Each structure stands twice: as C-alpha cells, then as structure tokens.
C-alpha cells in the first residue's frame, strides 16, 4: 500500500490516495442523495487517519464546493433546483450564521461553548431524526389504511408547511419549481433560523436545511435535496476561500477527494431517480441517528470509536444507495427491453 502514499506538503504528512478517494466517494454519494455537504463524515474520517483538525475542516470545505457543483448541475437538469428559493434562503442563512457566530463567542466568554454546543447538537439530531422517522411511519400507516379501504389516494390533514404558506405577509412569491406560493419572509426566516443553528453547532447546515425545506416551506423531497445542494455549493466555495486564505486547506488532498466525490456525487444524484421521496426520508433519518450516536460517543470522550462509527456508517449507507441505483437501472433497462419487443 506504500506505493499509493502521496506527500502532502501543506498538511506536512504522507497520506494514502486510495483512502482519500474512498472518503471522497462515500461523502459524494451521500451528499448527492441527501443534499448535504457531509462535513460530519469527512472531518472525523480525515482526522482519525492523522490529518490535523483545522486542515481536515478546511480541506473538507474545499472539496465540498467542487462536489456540490457536480450534484447541483445534475439536480438542475432533473428539475430539482429552485434557484429563487435558494437565493431567498441564502440571505437569511448569511445573517443567521453571523448572529450564530456572535452567540458562540458569547457562550465561549461564559465558558459554556464546548459542553452546551455538543448537548444542543445531540438533542437537535435526535429531534430531527425522530420527526423524519415519525413522518415516514405515519405515511406508511396511511398508505396501508388507504390500500385496505381500496381508496386510490391517501388522505392527509393540513401540514405545518401548508399552514405557514397561508400567512399573508407581502411580498407573496410563487416558487415555480417547488410549486409553493408563500411570503418571501418564510424562506428568509427559515434560512435565518437554520443559519443560526448551523453556525452555533459549527456545521454546514445541510442536514437541518433539507428537512426544513420539506416540513416548513413545503418543498417536494427531491427539490429540497437539489435546492439545499445549491446553498451548500455557495457556502462551500466561500468556506474554501476563507480557510484557504488562513492557510488551512491542503489543496492536493482536496483534489484527490474531489476526484472520488465528483464521481460519487453523480451516482448519488442519479440514484434519487429510482427511489421515492419517502425512501430518501427514511434513509436520511437512519443517517441522522448514526450521526447522533457518533456525537454521543465523542461526548463520552471516545473519539476513535466515534470516528470509526461515522466512517463505517457512511460507507454502508453509500453502498445501500449504489445498490438502489443499480437495481433501478436494471429495472429500467428491463422495462425498455420488454416495451420494445414486437407484439405477436
């Protein structure tokens, strides 16, 4: 394996290229499928193999920008990116992140930052995971009921997003791709809140924004994934620049990771074509619970098991996604073959 080692002059260490490609591909598949940046997989994965933490964060942000371009282009062609909605949210996110950073400084001055942030993180992940899982289970229950009663369509009550969309504060905007009409202030506010939370927790925020777009704004799952990736692309590029100016990015490592991530992102994005929105939600909930367990292990000062758990889970989830993709492609091909057979 020594022959695959490459010297990274900025991080000042030798690193295995295959490992960088593996980490990149894993996070690329998950990112393209869920619409997230995946810092919570990359940073501990690089760190566990000896990458210094500040370089791990900076290098992750650098490759994230490039990888998100790949996913955003593909999602855009699928019609999953609502640019107007993404831009409205970016305004709120930027202000929210600034406020969040100030809140962190205040917590630091009080000497509470480390413990409080990690506890909030665990609670947040648990709540998001539980809600998404509850929503999935309710959907399955409703579908079973409808099937038993012989009704073609499932019945569902008014959702929170529908209630929020009715609030009439001008300007009211129609977001065509999402099929949502609401006040401009709703996505701005959602962006602001997710920005504050992401900044306080020190993460990119994709795993908060994606469910927020579904449950608060009312986007279809695939549009939530694509629109969130558009935001990740912008924040990733900005993060890469700011960490680069501070000298905390190993560009060579980021390039190798991007090679794997770009291919993975393409595969992960195409996989959404073959799964229903609710299946994405279920896998997302499982991923969030694993991330929650990893943070809990970190809280118990079990750094290495925490990093191993998150990397193994990342590889397992991306394998599931690629399996879904292969199955979908094979089914599609079989359908095309059977439809092209001449009628006897």
């Amino acid at each position, binding site marked *: 394996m020594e022959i695959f080692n490459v010297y990274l002059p900025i991080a000042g260490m030798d690193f295995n290229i295959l490992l960088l490609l593996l980490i990149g591909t894993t996070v690329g598949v998950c990112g393209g499928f869920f619409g997230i940046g995946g810092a919570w997989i990359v940073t501990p994965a690089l760190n566990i193999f000896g990458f210094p933490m500040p370089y791990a964060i900076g290098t992750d942000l650098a490759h994230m920008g490039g990888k998100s371009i790949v996913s955003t282009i593909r999602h855009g062609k699928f019609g999953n990116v609502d640019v107007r909605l993404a831009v409205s949210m970016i305004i709120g996110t930027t202000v929210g992140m600034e406020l969040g950073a100030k809140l962190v400084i205040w917590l630091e001055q009080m000497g509470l930052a480390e413990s409080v942030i990690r506890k909030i993180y665990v609670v947040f992940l648990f709540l998001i995971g539980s809600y998404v899982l509850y929503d999935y289970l309710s959907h399955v229950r409703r579908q079973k009921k409808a099937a038993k009663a012989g009704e073609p369509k499932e019945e569902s009550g008014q959702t929170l997003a529908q209630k929020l969309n009715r609030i009439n504060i001008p300007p009211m905007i129609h977001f065509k791709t999402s099929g949502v009409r609401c006040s401009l202030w709703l996505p701005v506010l959602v962006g602001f809140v997710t920005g504050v939370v992401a900044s306080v927790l020190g993460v990119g925020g994709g795993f908060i924004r994606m469910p927020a777009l579904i449950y608060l704004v009312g986007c279809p799952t695939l549009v939530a994934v694509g629109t969130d990736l558009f935001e990740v692309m912008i924040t990733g*590029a900005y993060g890469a620049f700011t960490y680069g100016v501070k000298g905390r990015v190993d560009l060579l490592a980021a390039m190798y990771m991007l090679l794997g991530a770009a291919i993975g992102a393409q595969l992960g994005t195409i996989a959404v074509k073959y799964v229903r929105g609710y299946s994405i939600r279920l896998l997302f909930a499982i991923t969030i619970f694993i991330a929650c367990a990893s943070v809990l292990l970190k809280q118990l000062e079990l750094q290495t098991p925490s990093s191993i758990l998150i990397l193994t889970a990342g590889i397992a989830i991306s394998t599931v996604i690629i399996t879904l993709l292969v199955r979908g492609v094979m089914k599609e091909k079989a359908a095309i073959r059977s439809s092209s057979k001449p009628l006897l």
Partner: protein
Amino acid sequence: MHMISRKICPVSPDKWKAITLLFIFAVLVLPSITLAASGGKPATKIYNVADTRGMEPGLSKWIADIYNNNLWLFGTLIVVMMGGMGLIIGLGMDKLVALLGINLGKLDHHE
C-alpha cells in the same frame, strides 16, 4: 522611641520613594525594553510553511510554492481549481452516464 523606629524601619522615607519609583519603572518600562531587545512585539499570528525541500518540480511543488508566497492567491486558486474540476468531472460523468443509456431528463416529483 526614635531608636526603636530606626531599628524597625532602617530605610529612610526618601529611600522608600526611590525604591517605589524604581519598582514602577521596572514594572512599566522594563518589559518594553526586553521586548525591544528580543526583536519587537510577540507574534500574534503563526504562519505555517509548506516544506518544499527535496520536492521534485510539478503540481505539488507549484501548489506548495503558491501557499508559501501568497495566501490570497492560494485561496483564489482553491476556489478556481475546485470549481473547474467539479465542472469538468461533472459534465464528463454526465456524458458517460448518458452513454450507458440512462434517461437523464426531467423527473416527476413523486413522494
């Protein structure tokens, strides 16, 4: 009485004044003199330098040299490289996947 006070306090009030002034001088002025002697203010920022000794000319060395010489240029290079690579690989993979016969048209948003 006078004898006792002299025994307890052998230093005259004038000398006390001189000692106090010397102490203030030491506290306020000496650190700056010491700092000046050591080459100015202490460093507030620590810069990392990429070790390029013994590196062959090529992409790695070129990146490391930019990193060592100009961090603003390095930051810009990261954004351009990552964006460019993402775009090229993304479009290339798009063509490759299309060649495999996978339909990459618009999707219906079914939940």
